[in-house]
């Protein structure tokens, strides 16, 4: 157990130092070693692939939202795996079965969106029903 404030906070300080070192090393080395190209597109601030200046009210394809939602769903699934791994040794078979059920449910969802053509970005799919434009 740490006894003094210095001992308690030492790991935190170490973490801060390492984080700063890694960050400055990345930026610094790429500044020193990287190839420098200057053009208009390259100098525009990056804003998720959207022009940073202009009208914000664009029409987006609904596919963007679908992919974003699916990303969050499957991301959450991955997060559940971490605590599961931590307690796996204690729970053994029980945890295995529970996670199997969970993963099968997620797979059913994956199968559904896949077959529904959500992951298919090409336009010419006759078996996918698309709502008519108003």
């Amino acid at each position, binding site marked *: 157990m740490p006894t003094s404030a210095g001992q308690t906070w030492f790991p935190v300080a170490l973490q801060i130092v390492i984080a700063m070192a890694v960050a400055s090393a990345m930026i610094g080395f790429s500044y020193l070693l990287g190839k420098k190209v200057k053009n208009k597109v390259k100098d525009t601030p990056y804003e998720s692939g959207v022009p940073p200046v202009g009208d914000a009210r664009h029409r987006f394809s609904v596919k963007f939202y679908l992919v974003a939602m699916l990303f969050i769903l499957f991301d959450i699934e991955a997060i559940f795996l971490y605590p599961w791994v931590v307690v796996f040794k204690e729970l053994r078979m029980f945890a295995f079965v529970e996670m199997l059920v969970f993963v099968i449910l997620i797979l*059913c*969802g994956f199968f*559904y969106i896949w077959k529904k053509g959500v992951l298919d970005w090409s336009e010419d799919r006759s078996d996918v029903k698309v709502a008519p434009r108003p």
Partner: protein
Amino acid sequence: MLAEAFTYTTPRTEEIIRLLPELILSAAGTFMMVLIPLAKDRYPSLFGNFSIVAILSAIAASLFAFTNPGTAFSDLMVVDGFATFFRVLVLSVGITTVLSSYRFLHREGTDPGEFHALILFSLAGQCLMVSANSLIMIFIGLEISSIATYILCGYLRDDKRANESALKYFLLGSFATAFFLYGIAIVYGATGSVALTDIRRVLISAASPPVAMIGIAIALMLVGILFKISAAPFQVWAPDVYQGAPTPVTSFMSAGPKAAAFAIFLRIFMTAFQSDAHGWAPLVWLSALLSMTIGNFGALLQNNIKRIMAYSSIAHAGYVLVALAACSEIGTAAAMFYLAAYACMNIGMFAVVVHLSGKGERHLSIEDFAGLGVTQPVTAALLTVLILSLIGVPLTGGFFGKFYIFKAALQSNLVWLTVLGLLNSAVASYYYLRILVMMYMREPGEVTSNIEPLPFTLQAALFLPVLGTFILGVFPGALINFANHSAALK
């Protein structure tokens, strides 16, 4: 504490059996999701038939679970008479919803698969709500049920009314759920538990119960629950949402999720907060009066049948709240009986509306019922039974429902509320009788002259509720006895 968090037990067989209805429904729903892309449009009735089988097996599972009642999963849920009553009720509502949606989905040219899967998920949530014994489980059930219902409201996605309905319901509904959740958080802060039995024990036995905190928590949870049962002053959403949603969904919402929300209302307030009844009963009293009055007087001004039924639904929530304001065991039993009777009359009523409204749901005005008694005498006669039940005429389930509720209210000395409730019933008969007048005393209009006879599935969705209404009206004894036996919530 930490060590305790790591202890676990593998579920025992009887615990799995107590959860079986929910397991069947969610497994069937998930299986259907896999089936949708495989079956495509080849078997249009497959999904409906499949969900009827799934719901019937869930009913069987609920009854089987009741042969060995008790708690499960460290008190998280409980299977008792109360839970079984409401499970069977919401599942029966589910069956009639599926029956009335076969032809509807075909007529509107929309996919049946997801619709039925969502109905199954919503039912799983409602079954979980009514058998949950802890605030967190109640919340999870409520969310499962609500989210599925939000989507169902907007199921006809090319219809602007359905979009409006779904968005309004979703925004207001999630706001109400947030209130409910905040209430749960405060209860946990004040009592150190989310288990209903523990909360009850703390509130009864603590030397100085946390009165102020519990008062705030009760108020917040009341907001959430009163919204879900569409009771005043949180009823504003109901007419718009009921009008815009596809008619089978309106019928489902007004009976299933509403009954489940009343079930959690009864369970939370008659167990955990029973010792604080002097605090919340006046609020319920006020809400009952407001709901009855706003609902009945609002319905007088409407001409759209779905809006009339929405206001009528608010008024009926008010009647059930009268039974809750009594806060006694016979009040609980009366509420249970009334919800069953109300589910019967509403679902049958909407089955006719599904048929009459025609493609695109264009014929929803009350004038469209003109002359139905001449062109479709049997349908009109069955509808008359349901309307008489909604008014509360003897020999129908609606009569005994009101009778038990006002009896319970009088036993708890709620004389004024009883008088005002009876006056309200008189007001209500005006707008119900308008439909009867239209059906029997007007010449057949364009809609009723060209109407086809009801298809088989809709006949079943109309006939079964009428049968239920008669059984409840002629032999109410069996059900009210069961309700009285299971009304003692612990």
